[in-house]
């Protein structure tokens, strides 16, 4: 009797496991396709935009920064600080995993890390200079409801700022609505909520506001507001260290 049980079990494994593997591969492919669509909806391949970053402190006071951002392809982004005066002329460049900061007084770009925060507040460099999610993460479907997908994203390399993300995606529009960012230890680092879907023209329809809170910084809140997002083509040379001091020419 026991022998038969093993035979049944092994027979079941033989027929079931490959099917299960195929199903899993298929759902992973589907998850990564959803993630790519999320990226396409969030950021066109080549564009310029202005962003206002508002850091709200627990006492209610605010600090505001305005950036001019240009992006090309999946892994090239440059950003110029437009205001306040104390930060004006600073510029950051991101090429894949590499990130640099240019400070006019210093006169040369220096390598910075993605975990650092140039402007303070809850957003760090990786949030402000974020590339396409599909460049940095592999996706799997964690849960599906009639209205949304919940994706589990795992970092492809160790240089990515967050090891794991949990992403809520609206099923109808394939638009991201919420992202939770986790450290390797499983600690929840921050929560990003995507709000106020706006038509920027040029076929760009995306959330205009990203609100960020963090259980590590109770009472702090950061908001990123997008404006004047336009499709624009740039030569690759715009995304180089040599061009960082010249970014203002593109405005």
């Amino acid at each position, binding site marked *: 009797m026991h022998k038969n049980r093993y035979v049944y079990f092994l027979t079941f494994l033989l027929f079931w496991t490959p099917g299960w593997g195929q199903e899993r591969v298929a759902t992973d492919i589907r998850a990564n396709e959803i993630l790519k669509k999320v990226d396409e909806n969030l950021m066109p391949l080549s564009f310029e935009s202005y962003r206002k970053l508002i850091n709200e402190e627990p006492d209610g006071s605010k600090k505001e920064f305005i950036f001019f951002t240009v992006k090309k392809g999946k892994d090239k982004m440059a950003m110029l600080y437009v205001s306040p005066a*104390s930060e004006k002329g600073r510029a950051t460049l991101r090429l894949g995993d590499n990130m640099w900061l240019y400070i006019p007084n*210093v006169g040369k770009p220096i390598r910075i890390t993605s975990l650092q925060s140039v402007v303070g507040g809850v957003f760090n460099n990786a949030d402000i200079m974020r590339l396409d999610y599909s460049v940095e993460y592999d996706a799997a479907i964690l849960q599906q409801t009639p209205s949304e997908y919940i994706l589990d994203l795992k970092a492809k390399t160790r240089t990515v700022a967050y090891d794991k993300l949990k992403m809520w995606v609206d099923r109808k529009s394939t638009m991201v609505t919420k992202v939770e960012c986790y450290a390797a230890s499983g600690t929840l680092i921050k929560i990003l909520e995507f709000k106020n879907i706006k038509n920027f023209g040029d076929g760009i329809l995306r959330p205009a506001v990203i609100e960020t809170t963090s259980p590590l910084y109770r009472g702090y809140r950061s908001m990123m507001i997008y404006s004047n997002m336009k499709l624009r083509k740039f030569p*690759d040379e715009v995304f180089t260290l040599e061009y960082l001091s010249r970014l203002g020419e593109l405005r």
Partner: protein
Amino acid sequence: MRLFSHIVLAVLCIFYFTRSFSQEYDFDIPEEEEAKIEFNGNLDAKWGLLRAQRSSPFYAVQFYDVPEKDDYLSQYRLDFYLNGVYRHKQVGFFIKTFYQYAKEEPLSPSFFELYGSLNVSPRLSMSIGKQRFNWGKGYAFNPVGYVNAEKDPENPDLALAGKPSVYLNYNRSYDSRILQNWSLGAMLLPPEADRNDRFASAEHIGAAVKLYFLIKNIDLDFMATFRKDAPRRLGLDFSTNLRENLEIHGEFSYAQDEKKYVAADDLITSCKMDGGSYLIGLRYLNRLNTTLIAEYYHNNSGLSENEFRAYLQYLRNSVESNRAEMVDAAKGNMSIIFRSKTLMRDYLYVKLMQPEPFAWLYSSVSLFTIYNLSDHSYLISPQLSYRPYTNFEFLLWPFFFFGGNDTEYGNKPFKSKIEIWIRFYF
């Protein structure tokens, strides 16, 4: 009827000619272009209290003419930086001026930068004028900074003056995982006018070149400089992120016929030497958001312990001679030949920075040390920055110098100093 046809013809002719005239000279009034002239800058009001080290030969030379020797000195000054940028299409004009007010007297601007640039294309650009370059990956020291203004390791972020140059840069990117970008920067460095304050010998025009590569995730530079009356230098530097929170960098420079000055009795003599200077450093960020910068610097032409002792003795001798011309010569050498803040060979620089410690909003604290590895003297400097309002900053910045007799930091003209800065940006 004939008259009527003539009139019609005349009217048609007038109409035709006036029409063509108006077409030829007609124009659309262009919309007023938005001015692209921008000004910005900052005003630093600084007050310092300095504790004199009267046993220091540097102090004795610097204050030789001052009859009253105080134990504490006060220093008040206003540093005003005014920068302007004008851009129109491919052409740009840049100006950076600096004014320093220390006492009531006419102020004249120092032009830190004054240059025009032409961007022929995103790949090719050139500039002519006085422009600041900053070569090298080091934070506090740059052995490959051949065209840099001399950096103050006690304040590496300070705005500094540029050099007159004619600069050409070619920049090229590739859609490749290995070589992503390279650029070639070449410059001519005209010598300072020393003939009737207007001219200089054409033989002393210098040249410098830098080749940059971004290979995989590594920044790599090769550089060289040549001038008839200066040492030939060849160098390289690199920088890369080993992890998302750890960056390493390094520089190596080889100099041929580098002049080294040493003191012997009452004289300063020079000799020429070949050799390498180098730097290795890292930048690390921990989970508490604390940044650590650490650098080791070897200066090939720096003074050895014995040579530094001889230099101190030279300064002492000049003061003890009680001859104004000897003291003036020592003072001149101090501000020209031995002006560097790191005169010796081997240094360790360590800086820790913590934004918003103890959840104290808008503040940041830092602490740095420069440790002289040859004579074991050092300086320690904590700094507190507070930015409660946009475009306003308050800085509290003390310095403490430690070291035994005949050591570099043990002989600084001031034992300690504290500075308060109030900075307004506009």
